[in-house]
């Protein structure tokens, strides 16, 4: 596993990916983002990902935001939030935990980001507040903001989609 200096993958993302894998019934997982590569396997003799994956065992690529993966295998009937799907070719910025969503650093100030604005992985896009503790959220993605899904001043849940971003080519 190598981590390049411009990859948007943070240690927390890796932890999350490992958890997703542990929770799943998959045999192995292969993730590649830029020059970041992660291979997980239940096989103690595994040496690495199969480069020419046979049909049906395609590696899971992190093309969409990672936490979206487990929802595919859990029933959606009781999913707490019913979300509109992510449009093709777009990526989502999701809430890191439950809290109150704020688009601006303080009341009356301009929002961190507007629709159509270009963002980098380290651009702060909003605040999530828990009991007066305001934590900025970084985009984690390079691209252009296309939608703001969460409502200013309202509660968002963990993993809820906050923004839809069109990734930079």
């Amino acid at each position, binding site marked *: 596993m190598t981590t390049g200096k411009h990859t948007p993958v943070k240690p927390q993302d890796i932890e999350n990916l490992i*958890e997703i894998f542990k*929770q799943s019934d998959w045999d192995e997982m292969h993730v590649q983002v830029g020059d970041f590569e992660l291979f997980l396997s239940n096989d103690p003799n595994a040496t690495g990902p199969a480069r020419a994956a046979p049909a049906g065992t395609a590696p899971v690529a992190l093309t969409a935001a990672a936490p979206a993966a*487990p929802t595919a295998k859990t029933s959606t009937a009781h999913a*707490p939030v019913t979300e509109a799907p992510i449009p093709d070719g777009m990526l989502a910025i999701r809430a890191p935990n439950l809290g109150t969503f704020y688009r601006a650093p303080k009341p009356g100030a301009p929002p961190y980001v507007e629709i159509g604005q270009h963002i980098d992985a380290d651009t702060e896009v909003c605040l999530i507040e828990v*009991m007066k503790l305001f934590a900025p959220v970084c985009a984690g993605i390079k691209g252009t903001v296309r939608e703001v899904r969460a409502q200013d001043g309202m*509660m968002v849940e963990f993993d809820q989609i906050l923004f839809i971003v069109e990734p930079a080519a």
Partner: protein
Amino acid sequence: MAISRVLSVNRGEIAARVVRAAQALGIEAVQAVSVADRDSLAARLADRCVVLGPAPSRLSYLDPKLLVHTALATGCDALHPGYGFLSERAALASLCDEHGITFVGPRAETIAALGDKLEAKAIARAAGVPLVPGTDRIADVASAQAAAEELGYPVLIKASAGGGGRGMFIARTPEDIAAGFDKASNEAREAFGDDTMYMERYVENARHVEVQVFGDGQGRVVHFGERDCSIQRRYQKVFEEAPCAAMPNALRAQLHRAAVALVASLNYRNAGTVEFLYDVDRQAIYFIEVNARIQVEHPVSEQITGYDLVQLQFRIAAGEPLALTQAQIPLRGHAIEVRLNAEDPYHDFRPSPGRIAHWAPPRGAGIRVDSHCYDGYLVPPFYDSMIGKLIVTAANREACVERLRAALDRCEIGGLTTNLPLLRYIARHPDFVHNHLNTRWLEKTGLPAFGAQQE
């Protein structure tokens, strides 16, 4: 009901239990979950479910601010902590108080006082509740022998600064003290830089008994009888019964009085459990600690009294006075609870999370199953391994043991490894059947015999 919407902030079977109890009282239930529990039974039963954070507890169930924020943001006016996690963290109770959320449990200051072991002992002593007899500092062999004569052998001699068994030994005779005292105090000086020694009566043949109590915080306190939880592995209870059939009535009455006196001295509010060591050889009871919450094993007390203790928690929290007198709480019949765990009893109890392919617990008269599992449920690897509790009730212990054996035989859980083989083995062991048990029985006798049977 002065509570209209409650946030349930625990998981597993107790979360489902809390949601159902609330709904039965006309209280709306919001279930807070980690992402790993969004498909849990409590999440399905609740009127609303919200996802707090990722799977690790410290980012979800163990964050007091996140829980109270969630309660406020979802319009809840109460919060039920369940057991474990933050249930006995005074900080959560006081944070609820500060924000006008009713904490379904004892007052924050009660939780804090009882959570400090030394303070809890001082409270017990002041209420006239017996503690394990012991001494202050002992200077030398001669004074140790004199003190042991007074306490009665065997005695446990310990380093005041001690821990991990260092500077500690059991003495059964004055000769044992002569042989061990200087060595132990030297060991204590080397290990802890302090050779202060003291002595306690050593209880060789102990049962773990505990009394279920309830107070309304307005001066009234009642008990719901005692439970015997002597079958333990590494201080984890495996079997729990009510009543403690091995205890004579006169001592039982003393036990109940002691528990009530202790919590009455605190003007206790809500559910609690006063734990004691029952010294079978000396026919004495000694205070251990108070658990300021509802406990895993509360159903056995419900079974022999006929009360729903979680509903009672909500009533007390809503400010209703305790309308019960002790005479209205009959102790009838016998109940046994066993804990079903997703763990491998043949391989050092290693956890075995996974998907439950087949969930068919027994049903029938006198059988109750408290669980959050169902066909296809994925037992996540992040939390404890309990997947449910089987509770059987009958007119007396003998019939109850019989019913337990039959129920365990009919219990079918497929897809993951469970401790069912061990539970079945214990339920048939003559020592269990004849109630010849103590807190060391499972580790010293039960488990070695279970292991040998496999070879």
